[in-house]
């Protein structure tokens, strides 16, 4: 406890670095998955290919990917960019199939009715299809957010600064409190982000509020 109180500045600094590496992948995964999923749903062969690729991508452990990326894109081994790109790929591997399912779950008749009412394709997507796919998309983003925030710590063993450095440093110096602080801070950051996503979901999709009690 004394270690934590004496090092609040360090923990805050690592938390900031941690967020800088976890928020971009979450955003990239969400925003890129939407057009990619639409594309997949329009082309059957692409959907099969992407599903297979996503499965294989998910099987690749994170540390080897963090190691391979510098050689592929010319960054340094300790560059946070490796972590951001690798975690974006994992996020996409999870989000594209999820978004594809989300769009397929939208009732075709509803889309037909919207077109009949005079919605242009762009407006129909933004005002009808996207909101109806929203709850499934939100569920996917929540999984991506929690696993991304947890995976960022692995970069610590390569010397990329994040809350994972508390594990590396704590192990080297034999300070249990430092490691415990890292675990608690990482889990808290993940659960807090998850809670914020749920609140955000309720704010932008008010019609889902009544059903919340029934969702697991």
């Amino acid at each position, binding site marked *: 406890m004394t270690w934590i109180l004496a090092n609040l500045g360090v923990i805050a600094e690592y938390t900031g670095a941690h967020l800088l590496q976890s928020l971009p992948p979450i955003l990239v995964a969400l925003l890129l998955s939407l057009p990619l999923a639409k594309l997949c749903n329009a082309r059957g062969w692409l959907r099969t290919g992407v599903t297979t690729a996503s499965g294989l991508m998910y099987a690749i452990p994170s540390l080897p990917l963090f190691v391979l990326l510098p050689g592929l894109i010319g960054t340094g081994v300790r560059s946070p960019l490796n972590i951001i790109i690798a975690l974006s790929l994992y996020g996409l591997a999870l989000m594209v199939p999820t978004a594809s399912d989300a769009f397929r779950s939208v009732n075709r008749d509803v889309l037909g009715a919207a077109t009949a009412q005079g919605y242009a394709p762009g407006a129909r997507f933004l005002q009808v299809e996207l909101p109806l796919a929203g709850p499934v998309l939100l569920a996917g983003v929540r999984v991506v957010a929690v696993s991304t925030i*947890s995976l960022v710590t692995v970069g610590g063993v390569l010397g990329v600064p994040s809350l994972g450095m508390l594990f590396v440093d704590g192990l080297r110096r034999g300070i*249990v409190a430092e490691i415990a602080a890292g675990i608690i801070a990482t889990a808290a950051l993940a659960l807090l982000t998850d809670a914020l996503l749920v609140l955000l979901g309720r704010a932008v999709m008010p019609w889902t509020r009544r059903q919340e009690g029934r969702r697991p």
Partner: protein
Amino acid sequence: MNGNPFLDALVWLGDPSRWSGPAGVPVRTLEHLGYTALGVLIAALIAVPVGLYVGHTGRFKGLTVAVAGAARALPTLGLVTLFALLVGIGLTAPMLSFVILAIPSLLAGAYSAVESVDPATVDAARAQGMTERQILARVEIPLGLPLLIGGVRGATMQVVATAMLAAYVGSGGLGRFIFQGLGSQNYPQMIAGSLLVIVLALVLDLSLLLLQRLTAPRGTAA
């Protein structure tokens, strides 16, 4: 070793001396597989009976889902380093982490396997006079087997990835090549180690996927 790091990694892998001895690729691969198998086995002994019980009786379902969900937020490196300090350097500390990290997938796999079985089928079995134990062993487990193996697959992928960190706290496995390379600034060796882990992970994943397909009972879509 100033050229393309990937070519240097292939040269590293092609060196026959890397493929023999106690620190060679075959021994490290077997260590890695051994850690993974033992971690998943111990976790399965704990999680599968609990998951089957939860799935069959429907009791503690909310708690099980909550535990499996919350465990995903736990950073693997944090657990490995914490146990290394508390238990000491060696295999016990990483093995404890592997078991903890493998439990959520196995628990979810076992319980969703039982739950996926059509209640009408279970009722029919009960009406035929099967005991609860027979229903579980002869109806629910065979029908839910692909999902149960899906849980084993998820747990295996989790442990095979985390098993690299065993080398970080003084044990063996394929992580050794990565951390030795990091220490001696030998990037090609780090790449070689990474490629070996990726190949191992993909082979395990595809084998278990195949097993999942093969165990699907005829007439059901898995």
